[in-house]
């Protein structure tokens, strides 16, 4: 259990798209302002700001150096994580739990149109070996994992495509999503461009420009700020070994992260107790592997959940009603968006794609080849 209760009290995100016609500064300013407005507080109320962006993705060193003003961090205690925004939320949570701060603004963004993020991913591999051989990037490694998973548990391409169909159709009702395909079919997914077999255009998250921000507050402040706080009831994070030395048949670090979060939140039966999940599925098969790592089903049974519609909006455990990362992937914002989308469901603000009666939600962020590191949040309504 945590020593202090912390809640999400406001949020905002951009309309994610490829090649947003907006500077980074403006994009970040808009979501930071938007989150503060949503919370009904001013810049002067914020104690600390944590942002998320990476130098390689932004194409410049100290990627946030010209953004502190835009995000409202002028003369404020701020810092930056260099990975997915859900990790920035984790850091901000820690700052509040420490007692040193009460209100935190968290922001994450990437304009992926600046430089192909898949190319950037090739720079994360072992420079003494893998990089010199030149075969690996996030897509090729995901493909290797996908094939291993398919062969290991007899999962078909159609079953994996089912995730894309669900999420891209869900996205049609999400005004912020980039890739909306209300009439998409399995056939369409399986005839989209083949990158690294079995990974195709419609089973990879799109490269998006986007930003997201949220406001966290300690219990006392949260109650002053809003009648509708979304409490962070549990959190867990974990990093796996490098790709040469880990078991690719499952996302082990996600399982560990989820177990920690469930324990903290007092959840013993996630399938029964979670009302909705927002998972960062950068590749369609990752969602199936995610169901297993999150203990929604046994290993290898993820395909059943999608085939039987269990994770559809109308199913027993809706996953990614927002469309997930397959609908928009502004990389460093993606995990933060999952947290916001989960919070939206709890606050009943997901117009057009609201799941009824949501009290407990799970939000997930990841970073690294084949989801090497993961962070899981359990959120709960009043």
């Amino acid at each position, binding site marked *: 259990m945590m020593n202090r209760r912390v809640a999400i009290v406001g949020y905002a995100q951009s309309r994610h798209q490829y090649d947003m016609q907006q500077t980074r500064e403006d994009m970040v300013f808009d979501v930071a302002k938007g989150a503060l407005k949503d919370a009904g507080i001013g810049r002067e109320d914020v104690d600390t700001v944590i942002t998320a962006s*990476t130098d390689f993705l932004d194409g410049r060193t100290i990627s946030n150096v010209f953004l502190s003003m835009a995000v409202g961090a002028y003369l404020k205690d701020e*810092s930056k*994580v260099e990975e997915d925004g859900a990790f920035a939320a984790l850091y901000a949570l820690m*700052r509040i739990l*420490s007692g040193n701060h009460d209100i935190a603004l968290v922001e994450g963004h990437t304009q992926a149109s600046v430089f192909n993020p898949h190319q950037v991913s090739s*720079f994360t591999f072992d420079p003494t070996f893998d990089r010199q051989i030149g075969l690996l990037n996030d897509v090729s490694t995901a493909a290797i994992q996908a094939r291993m998973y398919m062969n290991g548990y007899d999962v078909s391409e159609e079953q994996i495509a089912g995730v894309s169909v669900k999420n891209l159709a869900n996205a049609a009702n999400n005004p912020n999503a980039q890739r909306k395909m209300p009439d998409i079919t399995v056939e369409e997914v399986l005839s989209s461009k083949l990158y690294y077999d079995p990974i195709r255009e419609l089973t990879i998250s799109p490269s998006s420009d986007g930003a997201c921000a949220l406001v966290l507050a300690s219990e006392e402040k949260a109650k002053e700020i809003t009648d509708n706080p979304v409490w962070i009831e549990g959190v867990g994070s974990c990093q796996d070994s490098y790709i040469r030395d880990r078991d690719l048949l499952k996302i082990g670090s996600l399982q560990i992260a989820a177990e920690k979060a469930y324990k903290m939140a007092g959840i013993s039966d996630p399938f029964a107790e979670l009302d909705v999940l927002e998972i960062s599925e950068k590749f369609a098969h990752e969602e199936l592997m995610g169901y297993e790592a999150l203990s929604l089903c046994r290993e290898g049974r993820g395909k059943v959940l999608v085939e039987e519609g269990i994770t559809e909006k109308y199913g027993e455990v809706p996953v990614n009603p927002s469309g997930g990362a397959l609908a928009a992937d502004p990389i460093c914002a993606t995990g933060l968006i999952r947290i916001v989308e989960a919070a939206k469901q709890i606050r009943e603000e997901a117009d057009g794609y609201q799941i009824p009666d949501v009290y407990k939600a799970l939000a997930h962020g990841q970073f690294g080849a084949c989801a090497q590191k993961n*962070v899981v949040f359990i959120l709960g309504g009043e």
Partner: protein
Amino acid sequence: MRNVAIIGCGQTKHASRRRDVNVAEMVADAAWNAMEDAQVTPDEVDSIVDGNMQGFGGIAQAEQWMGEWIGAPGKPVLRIATGGTTGGSVAQAAYYQVASGLSDIALAVAWEKHSDSKEAGATTGLLHVALGNFFHTFNYGMDLKSLVATAAVGAAAGVAVYQARHYMHRSGCRIEHLDMVAAKDRSNAAKNKYAHLQWPNCTPDDIAKTKMIVEPFRYGHICPASDGASAVVFASEDIAKKKTDRPAWIKGLASYSDEENQMMSENSGGTGIIDASEQMACRLSAMKAYEMAGIKDPQKEIDVAEIYQPFPSQELIFAERLGLFDETTAWKATEEGETEIDGRMPLDPSGGTNATNAIGSSAMQRVLEAALQVMGKAEEHQVPKDVHNAVAHGWGGVTNYIVVTVLGDSPRR
């Protein structure tokens, strides 16, 4: 409120090119030294925070590959990168891991291996910072020769030149005082077995003889670009008390950021702060950190300071901003020997960033060195007096990022 202390530190030897190790081995050295010093096993460490400037070494998200070398698999790992303040930001994040209660023993690791990029010091990273200099060229006027010289020794010089000039103009500090600071730092570094530029018994005259690069900076004033790594282990109060008799308690910390327009910024927007030595963010960070630490009179209560000073002018400027000297007097104090290792207010007994600058790691080194002083473990460069409180500082970005940490021999109450 949970008290947190540093219980162990580890560093590597710093040099222009550590060709003898690859970056994973280099970082592992520091991490393992720190864990040994802290007397913890990797299994006891339950979270890791790491950082470096990834553009400089050419590896993106390096801890994904290198994690195994520092005991990362199976643990929560956070990556932090904030320019020059990176090391300090990493240390502060590790503090927060423990202070939040989510972790009991956190390992903080920061490094830089410039030499992995084609040209040490002239990597994409530093050259990008040089962009700030072009704005000076256009707006304030810098002749081409100075601009080229600046780029040759490390682009950040341009930023610091203007900052130094403002300070010298305001305070009466002269170039001789910069010579004094650099000489002190290089001599101190000679007593620090991990430092890069070690010049035993260096005198101001030795420095004054070196070539002028761009007024007022001589070659002998400017920091090196080092390869190196440092690591620190943070622990909760219960564990710290079991592991060591003299932990270095984190009593206060802050990292305020300032207006980047002081360098006219990339989009040349807004009104800039003209005087880059004003450093309001440093004043505020220091005030907040001292308040948390219960320190009311830093001039009397701080026993030693580790200031991030790739340029000697910054030692003086930031010493004043940290409240260690009255405005405009730090250079006089230096002249009178007050800032020597055995002086009244020792600054950078380790030699500081002026003698060793592995960018991702340097701000962590300031925290590390301050901790060593509190713990009495700084060996040859230990200040010869009781250290009850120490302050560690870092700056970064285009001089708009600041990180301040106050450490002491007793926990916050």
